[in-house]
């Protein structure tokens, strides 16, 4: 069926990717085009597959902590946290309060980092010649510098430990974090002034790639993509993991579920994250930064299985672990948000144009390290 309804023409099979400027990595979409319209789209992944899960099953529990950094290499902090959370659930380790606050600070900074880059790259996919991305990257640099001061690495932080974090935050680094948080609203205002009201952007994103609320829930879509479709579900609110119940923040929810909503939800989430960060940096208590009973060597997890999940910037990041009581996990499974959010890519793209496919993919915000594992 021709989407234009006028002339039936030959369809064109195009392989967008794996080397393509806007597939955000080695990702491929087998697209069948009728003129400019998409009539079929099948995502093809696995180009970055390294069987992360099997590698982790051959390593000690703590040994795969640095490896979780490589899942979503934008958000190593939240990856660490999700893994630590799952293990803490199985072992019953209590995390000290200061460590919980530090984790929140790190996670929300990661959210700022991820969302700013995500919308920057989304606009780049719209053809904005990198201007928004470079604005976002300028700000991201501050956060990366902060991560480097704290953990010694900019992107592969390997910062969290079972029962706490690896090193404490000193006053200087706390001041650094406060500085970043203080300048963030100004950046957001500047960015929005540059982009949000731009007619071309509105024309490109509004009513493009609509995802209905029911499909979003049924297809296990999570994170900003789901919330843009009107799903009021934020694991920070639902599970109240960490100390998230102590902060006053809202969860922005969209109505239309189109690309523009996904863009706006990310901006609003950043504004909320700034609120959380302000509270966390104000209230952070003194105390130990790792549970005293936490062991780094000869760490064992009692037999059984457990599932721990957090609200990572891209959506629900979960770890399903099965232990036989030994030093290694028997089964180690990652529930990657970007992988599962791709399930509905075809549904969103059908009947749209090639140009829209690219921005829809950009608005889903995937990282191939996590999709392929």
């Amino acid at each position, binding site marked *: 069926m021709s989407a234009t309804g006028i002339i039936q023409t030959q369809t*064109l*099979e*195009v392989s967008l990717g794996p080397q*393509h*400027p*806007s597939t955000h990595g080695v990702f491929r979409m087998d697209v069948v*085009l009728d003129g*400019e319209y998409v009539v079929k789209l099948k995502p093809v992944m696995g180009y970055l597959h390294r069987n992360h899960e099997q590698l982790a099953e051959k390593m000690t529990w703590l040994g795969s902590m640095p490896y979780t950094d490589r899942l979503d290499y934008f958000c190593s902090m939240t990856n660490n946290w999700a893994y630590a959370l799952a293990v803490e659930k199985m072992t019953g380790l209590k995390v000290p309060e200061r460590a919980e606050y530090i984790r929140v600070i790190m996670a929300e900074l990661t959210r700022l980092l991820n969302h700013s880059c995500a919308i920057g790259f989304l*606009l*780049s*996919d*719209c*053809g*904005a*010649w*990198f*201007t928004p991305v*470079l*604005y976002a990257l*300028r700000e991201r640099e501050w956060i990366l510098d902060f991560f480097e001061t704290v953990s010694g690495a900019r992107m592969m932080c390997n910062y969290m430990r079972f029962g706490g974090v690896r090193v404490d935050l000193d006053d200087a680094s706390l001041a650094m974090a406060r500085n970043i948080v203080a300048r963030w609203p100004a950046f957001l205002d500047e960015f929005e002034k*540059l982009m949000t009201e*731009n*007619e*071309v*952007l*509105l*024309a*490109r994103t*509004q009513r493009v790639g609509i995802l209905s609320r029911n499909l979003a829930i049924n297809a296990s879509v999570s994170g900003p993509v789901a919330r843009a479709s009107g799903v*009021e579900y*934020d694991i920070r*609110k639902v599970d109240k993991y960490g100390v998230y119940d102590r902060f*006053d*923040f*809202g*969860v*922005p*929810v*969209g*109505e*239309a579920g189109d690309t*523009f*909503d996904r863009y*706006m*939800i990310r901006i*609003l989430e950043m504004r*909320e994250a700034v609120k959380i960060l302000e509270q966390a940096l104000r209230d952070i208590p003194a105390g130990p930064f790792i549970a005293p009973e936490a062991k780094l060597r000869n760490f064992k997890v009692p037999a059984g299985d457990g599932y721990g999940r957090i609200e990572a910037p891209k959506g629900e990041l979960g770890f399903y672990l099965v232990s036989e009581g030994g030093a290694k996990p028997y089964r180690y499974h990652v529930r990657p948000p970007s992988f599962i959010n791709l399930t509905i890519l075809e549904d969103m793209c059908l009947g749209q*144009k*090639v*140009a*829209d*496919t*690219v921005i829809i993919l950009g608005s889903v915000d995937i990282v191939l390290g996590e999709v392929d594992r």
Partner: protein
Amino acid sequence: MDAIYQLIHDYCPTMPDWLALALAILLPIAIVMGVFLTVFALLTWVERKALGRIQNRRGPNRVGPVGLFQPIADGLKLLTKEDIVPNAADKVVHFLAPVLVVVPAFMVLAVVPVAKGFIAVDLNIGVLFALAVSTASVLALFMAGWASHNKFSLLGAMRGVAQVVSYEVPMVLAAVVVLMASGSLSSVSIVEAQRGLTGWFVCKPWGLVGFVIFQLCAMAEVARTPFDLPEAESEIVAGYHTEYSGFKFALFQMGEYVAAITMGGITVTMFLGGYLGPGCDLPKFGWLISACWFFAKLGIIVVINIWARGTWPRVRVDQLLGFAWKLLLPLSLVNIVAMAVWHFAPNKLVGWVESAVLLAVAIVALVKINAGQTFEKRSYRFTS
């Protein structure tokens, strides 16, 4: 041409006739090409510097003072790169396309009056020639896309053809008002018709609208952002020149930039008074001052292009074509009527008011009619 021929004859009477004739033909071409190739090289540098400024970075700053030799370095790099031709490509057409991209771009240069009394060929139908020849670049674009035997290239080529053909129509219609006002097709007489304090056509209501339409169409015609769909790098890799490398690729870039400059030159000639400006009539250095005026105006157009590229996302293909057919085309038709109203008005003031009102009504009505494509203001709820 005849003047130069005469000049050569006077100074070197011993020179054989055929050589003098050849020189008379080649000399203006060489000068124009030299000047504009320098401008082209400078433009790539200016564009990268300006984009860098817009994007919080420095741009090229390694080669030469403030990176001024960057274009040369780029040229050398591209010259020494391997020339890759895809196995399945149509070799002859693949080779011809980059050549044909450059040719029309340079041919248009012939009719751009760069300074007072300085034009390569003063054709009687200069503007028509420019518009006609720039259309021919469509074919080169299509040849490149089709011969590469790459689906992205083909998509880019088809987009390019559709885009150029669509924008050609409002562009020619926008030029018609200028022809009506000046009563001539010759680019020199168009410039001369714009003498006076408010003589530039852009200072009149129909001229302003015509200028905006023409400038937008020119940007679309040479595929500048936000109309760079034929080579939309985020969607179809590099469009029609995906499969080109080395110097063929450089030729594409050159053709594109030279076309951008020449279209800017035509815009300046038709709406911004060309080389006119205070001091352009001085007996001795008038030509130099007028050249400065011309290039200053050209610079403004070029900066507008770069600015748009640095700040605007790309439009989608249906929006692009809809913009041409639903907004620019009717508006340019109304513009011709407005020009006629102006022409037959009893005095200047009445003409001004009448044509301005007519155009304002037309613009408002067209925007209203096309309101189906406008946008909604969204509000978001927060749950806690």
